[in-house]
């Protein structure tokens, strides 16, 4: 066998077209399952999708780049406010609003990235919280733009493609959100497997090693923050478009912390982990809080402890763990 034959005969790289198709199929399947099982609860599912985009956005900087942040909701919230204001100013096309949200998120992400990625460890975490708190305080003060504690209301997007109105049952919003999530997810798969994405993971592994192969660490982290901002901004835009209201909670510390919990639950450093974590957490929260409004947080805490103890790399690693255990049990059998 010649060297050339060895190369040609090799299996395709880890990221190939089938993975993209798998992502499309899984996202559509999840969307269809949600629509079938919870047709009366589409508003919850659309909110779930917008928060999922925030968690995916957080995963890009925390899971893939190792940047510690507890202020990521600032990106999400600022975009939601910008989209809300754009809509109130008469720009009601949902696709245009989505673009506005993405751009606002990109700007917010780049600004946050420039500040936060200059540092490491605790100073980085504290700085991210400070950025988040600053934005939350501004949102409260600038009531002419944000509605203050009452929130920004009256956001009424136009028809999607000039045809589909955002109905009170939330069908248009839901289908729109699933499609946006699908597109974003596929694009993100491309990004994290690109040389740029892999170098970001290399920086997370060891920034000095990355420098030794010529990587400019800081600009790359800032750029990834910008990409993350686009994703978080799209999430914020979807939230504003679908709910018609943007409140202070969208920029609050709790939203950031919750997103981090969802990411850890699902598995940081994996887009699938971010997806699974946000779905499991929000479905759990939605139904358990309805069933037991007084103790649901205790149950969420117990779930988190169980996951951290038995699957420290998140729910996404459970499949591999179970497969490994099953294989070892089968091997032990005579």
């Amino acid at each position, binding site marked *: 066998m010649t060297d050339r034959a060895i*190369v040609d005969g090799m*299996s395709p790289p880890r990221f190939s077209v089938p993975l993209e198709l798998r992502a499309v199929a899984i996202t559509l399947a999840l969307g269809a399952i949600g629509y079938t099982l919870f047709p009366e609860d589409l508003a919850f599912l659309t909110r779930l999708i917008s928060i999922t985009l925030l968690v995916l956005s957080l995963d890009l900087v925390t899971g893939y780049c190792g940047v510690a942040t507890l202020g990521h909701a600032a990106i999400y919230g600022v975009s939601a406010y910008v989209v809300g204001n754009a809509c109130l100013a008469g720009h009601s096309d949902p696709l245009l609003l989505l673009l506005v949200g993405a751009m606002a998120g990109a700007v917010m992400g780049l600004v946050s990235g420039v500040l936060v990625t200059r540092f490491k460890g605790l100073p980085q975490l504290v700085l991210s919280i400070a950025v988040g708190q600053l934005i939350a305080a501004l949102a409260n003060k600038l009531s002419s733009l944000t509605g203050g504690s009452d929130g920004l209301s009256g956001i009424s997007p136009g028809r999607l493609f000039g045809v589909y109105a955002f109905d009170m049952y939330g069908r248009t919003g839901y289908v729109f959100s699933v499609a946006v999530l699908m597109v974003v997810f596929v694009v993100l798969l491309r990004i994290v497997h690109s040389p740029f994405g*892999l170098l970001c993971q290399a920086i997370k592994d060891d920034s000095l090693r990355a420098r*030794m*192969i*010529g*990587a400019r660490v800081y600009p790359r982290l800032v750029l990834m923050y910008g990409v993350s901002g686009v994703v978080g901004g799209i999430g914020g835009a979807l939230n504003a478009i679908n709910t018609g209201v943007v409140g202070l909670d969208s920029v609050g510390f709790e939203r950031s912390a919750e997103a981090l919990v969802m990411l850890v639950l699902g598995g940081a450093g994996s887009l699938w982990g971010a997806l699974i974590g946000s779905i499991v957490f929000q479905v759990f929260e939605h139904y358990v809080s309805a069933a037991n409004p007084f103790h649901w947080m205790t149950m969420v805490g117990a779930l988190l402890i169980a996951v951290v103890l038995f699957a420290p790399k998140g729910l996404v690693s459970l499949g591999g763990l179970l497969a490994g255990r099953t294989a070892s049990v089968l091997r032990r059998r005579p």
Partner: protein
Amino acid sequence: MPATRLEVKGLSAGYGPTRVIDHMSFEVLPGGRLSILGRNGVGKTTLLASLMGLTTHHGGRVFLGEADLTDSRASTRARRGLGYVPQTRDIFRSLTVEENLVAGLKDRGREALDEIYVMFPRLAERRRHFGTQLSGGEQQMLSLARTLLGRPSVLLLDEPLEGLAPVICDQIMEIITALASSGEMTIVLVEQQIERALRFADHVMVVERGKAVWSGECSQLRDAPEMVDRLLGVGVH
């Protein structure tokens, strides 16, 4: 990137206030092969790390061709053409073999990977494995391959044969020799296996307590085992 001259003038460097390399000067011509020999702990690794800008600079200058790299960061030095394969191999543990290589692609297309896989067929077979699942020799190959993807004009190799089986050492030396013979890069090799180091290089420099105590052509050392014994405390057989 064509092979470039590496010139070091009066370099002093170390860790914080501690000076390990003391006023060292040498030059490697474009396409040249220099082996750096010395006992353990004399500063060979620190010298290469200093060339890469990873230590505290105390004095002297480092030139790559006409460019003065003394005040440049490690990433800039790498982009200017210095390739460094450290003793610790330094592969990215959370990435697979292929992902490690793709991370080092920079502006090159993925077809560059095919060239690397031709050079390192073993890596092609292990492309889906994570760095931690590789043997020492495979890790060394991966570290070398990733550095080569950056098309360095000067390659700094820090004990690439350390801890490897003789057959793997042969394979790696074969690759390094082929790279040197191509004339596309200048190579500086730090190695404890004196015989292999002398066979590979055209010039040799012996380091003792952070200073260059002897330098000359390899043949001078090969033909004078008593000098090797005096300088390095070992014989060449």
